[in-house]
Every structure is written in structure tokens, then in C-alpha cells.
């Protein structure tokens, strides 16, 4: 074989395939307005990818569409073209492109853009999700995990903590729906999440715990805002969790074998 099959673009394409059910249901429920929002976000991201390709020779990536879908679905409503473009530009440039493009970013660009929009324009309402769209997150997660592009341990960790939260009566339906969609779209992103299995379990569990914490004690926060904030903190903690997992592994090897 001249090149491996698993290039960055393969992962991006499979990720996109995994998100198709979610995107289809969301577009069906949202109609033309949703399509227009998706188109606008994709256009802005595309322009930035083009700029960075021309100026810094960074190849554009299909992952732009994944980012566009996440931002279009979760962004606050009725922002207007200018504010939405500003937030998207900030997220994509500062969250992804300055680090060298998709695959080298520290946090998911969509998370950065959404946090920017949420904290920058607090007067706009966050979207709510109907049950069909939220249920579509299940096949999306299933396809992603089956194809190996979404980390199974992370999803399992988050779902486990989420199940405990539901059993304890801490999570209401809207929060659960938003948290599920954000888990699939933002937290389980293969680049910005933890890369070791132990790290992934903890990363998912941390996301679940943060959602429960925010949902319980953050008064006046919309469900999507809760989930996006938890996603931002969880993905910022991911490198630390990886580092801890590696240090543990090395310490265990050293104890058992006297070397690494």
C-alpha cells in the first residue's frame, strides 16, 4: 500500500457519516432556517480554511463541515449574520487554525466558538431540542463508536455518570437531551478529547459530573449553555488526564519491571 487508508480526511469523512442521522433529524425539524444557518456557518469556516491554505499552506479539511454542523446546531438563536460570523471566525481561527489545522488543535473549535458566543452575547437565547433530534444522537454515537472515530470509553464514561444522575433525579429531560447532543458533537471529538483509554473514561465521567454540577447549582443557565460549558472544561482537562494516565502507566511499569 502506498499510503495508509486512515488519513486525517478518512477520519473526518467517517465522523461526518456518523453525524448524518443527527444532522438529518435536526434539518427536518428546523427546516429552511436551520439549513440557512448551517450554510452560513459552513461558508464562514470555508473562507477561513481557504485563507489559511493560501497564507500558511495548511490543507483544508472535511472536518470544517463537522464544526459547522456543531456550531449551527448549538449556537444561540437569532444572533444575526454579523455576530454569528464573528463568533465562528474566532472559534475556528483561535481554536483550530492557528494551531496548524484540524488534528493539532487543543480544544474543539466549535466549543470555542459556542463559548465565545454564549459569554459574549448573553442576552440571546440558547436553542432547545425536541425529543426526536436528541434521540438521533444515539445512532450517531453508535455509528461513530462502531467505526472507531468516536472514543468508546469516553462515551461510556459520560453515559455511566449520566445514568447515575438520572437515577438520582438530578437531570431533567431538557438538560439530558442537550448534554447528549453536546456529548456526541463536541466532547467525543477524537482530536480534542483524551487519547489514552483511562484518560477517556475519566474525561467522559468528568463531563458527566460537570453537567450534573452545573445543572444543579448554576441557576438561570440554559441546558445547552450548561452542556457547552461542561464540554469546554472537560476538553481543557483532557491533556492533563492523558498526562496522569501516562505517568501512572510508567510508574506501574517501573515497579513491575524496573524500567519503562
Amino acid at each position, binding site marked *: 500500500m*502506498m*499510503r495508509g487508508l486512515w488519513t486525517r480526511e478518512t477520519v473526518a469523512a467517517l465522523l461526518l457519516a456518523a453525524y448524518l442521522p443527527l444532522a438529518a433529524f435536526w434539518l427536518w425539524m428546523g427546516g429552511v432556517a436551520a439549513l440557512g444557518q448551517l450554510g452560513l456557518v459552513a461558508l464562514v469556516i470555508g473562507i477561513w480554511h481557504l485563507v489559511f491554505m493560501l497564507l500558511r499552506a495548511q490543507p483544508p479539511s472535511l472536518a470544517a463541515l463537522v464544526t459547522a454542523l456543531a456550531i449551527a446546531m448549538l449556537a444561540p438563536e437569532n444572533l444575526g449574520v454579523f455576530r454569528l460570523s464573528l463568533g465562528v471566525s*474566532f472559534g475556528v481561527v*483561535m481554536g483550530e487554525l*492557528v494551531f496548524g489545522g484540524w488534528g493539532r488543535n487543543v480544544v474543539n473549535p466549535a466549543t470555542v466558538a459556542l463559548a*465565545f458566543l454564549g*459569554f*459574549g*452575547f*448573553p442576552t440571546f437565547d440558547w436553542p432547545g431540542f425536541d425529543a426526536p433530534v436528541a434521540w438521533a444522537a444515539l445512532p450517531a454515537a453508535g455509528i461513530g463508536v462502531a467505526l472507531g472515530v468516536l472514543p468508546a470509553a469516553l462515551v461510556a464514561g459520560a453515559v455511566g455518570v449520566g445514568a447515575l444522575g438520572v437515577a438520582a433525579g438530578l437531570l431533567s429531560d431538557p438538560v439530558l437531551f442537550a448534554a447528549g447532543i453536546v456529548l456526541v458533537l463536541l466532547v467525543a471529538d477524537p482530536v480534542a478529547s483524551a487519547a489514552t483509554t483511562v484518560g477517556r473514561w475519566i474525561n467522559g465521567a468528568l463531563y458527566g459530573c460537570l453537567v450534573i454540577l452545573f445543572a444543579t447549582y448554576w441557576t438561570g443557565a440554559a441546558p445547552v449553555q450548561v452542556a457547552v460549558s461542561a464540554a469546554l472544561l472537560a476538553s481543557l482537562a483532557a491533556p492533563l488526564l492523558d498526562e496522569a494516565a501516562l505517568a501512572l502507566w510508567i510508574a506501574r511499569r517501573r515497579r513491575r519491571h524496573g524500567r519503562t
Partner: protein
Amino acid sequence: MAQPPNLWNTLTDPLIRQNPVTLQILGLCSALAVTTGLATALTMSISLTVVLTLAAGVISLIRRHIPDTIRLILQIVIVASLVIVIDQVLQAYFSEISKALSVYVGLITTNCLVLGRTEAYARHHTPLPAMVDAFGNGLGYSLVLMIVGGLRELFGKGELFGFQVLPLVDQGGWFTPLSLMLLAPSAFFLLGLLVWAVRAVLPEQAEAREHTPPLSTEPAE
């Protein structure tokens, strides 16, 4: 010393080429905290420039009498005395702004920028070049503070020095204030973008790479 340093260069170097904030990344704490508006940024800039210049002069005057072992204590005592004077003056004549600046004027004492210039330059030079260098560094710091403070006030409130520049939506205009600009993270972003811009223009300021990427990721055919 072969040649006394050129005073004009000593003064202008720290403005951009050797800027204490964007190149040496010193004095960030105050630069992030006080830049929500131009008025506080300007007050802070003036206070720091005055303290820095006077401290450099004093330390340079007694530089041959400072024992090496206690030089830091001595420098901090001198800087702290000057800071207290400035703080009292601000409280007496500009109590509004002094309240807005809260502890940050007092914290000039521990500002790395002040200690860095007195330690690195004033201890080894005669008073005039020492004070010119300190003044230049103060101006460089002020320049960054004014840029960041101006941008934050303009986009966060639509004002400059408290005067409405961009008409707000609530008052029938078109500008929606970007409230993120008034929070601390935006100062980080703006400062980062500023450093990026400066280094794009002056590539010699960019740091060496920490890692060398592999030569080629393509396997041989």
C-alpha cells in the same frame, strides 16, 4: 564599556522592538486586569512609568553601594516607597480611578517589569541612561495598555475615555456591546493577537521551535 549607549535608541527600542509586554511577556497581571477602560489603563500606565523611571534613577545613583546579597530587598524597598507615594497621590486627587484600579497600583511593587529593568539595566548604568531606559520601557508598557484598553472599551461599551463613540442599540444606534470584551479572557485574546501581529511583522521576535517536525510523513514508495 567601549561606547556609551545611544540615548535615542535606549528610549525607542522598548517601544516595539524590545517591548516589555509583547516580547519579554512581563507585567501581564496588571496589563490584563486594568485594561477594561482607557481611563484606568492610562492612569496605570502613568503610575508605572513614573515609578519605574524614579526607581531606576535612585537605584542607579546608589548602584556602587548596593551589596549584591541584599540587592533585591533594597530594590523592592525603593520601588515600594515610590508606589506608596503614587498610590497616596491617586487616592488624594483621583479617588474614583484609584478605586477602579483597586490593588493594582499597590501591585506595581511586585511587577516583574519594574524589578526586571532595575535589576538588569539600572544596576549597571549611570543615572541618565538608566532613567531613559526605564522611561522607554514605561512607554512601551503604556503603548500596549492603551491599545488593549482602547479596543476593550470600544468594543465592550462603545466608548472611548467614557465618551460614547459607537451608538448603542438601546439608545437607537446600531452597535451591540460585546460584553465578553469586559471580561478578563478577552485581554488574553487581544494580547495574544497583538503578539502574533507584532511577530508577523518582526519575525526575528518569534521564539525557536520547541520540537522539530519529522522531515517527511510520506512513507517511501
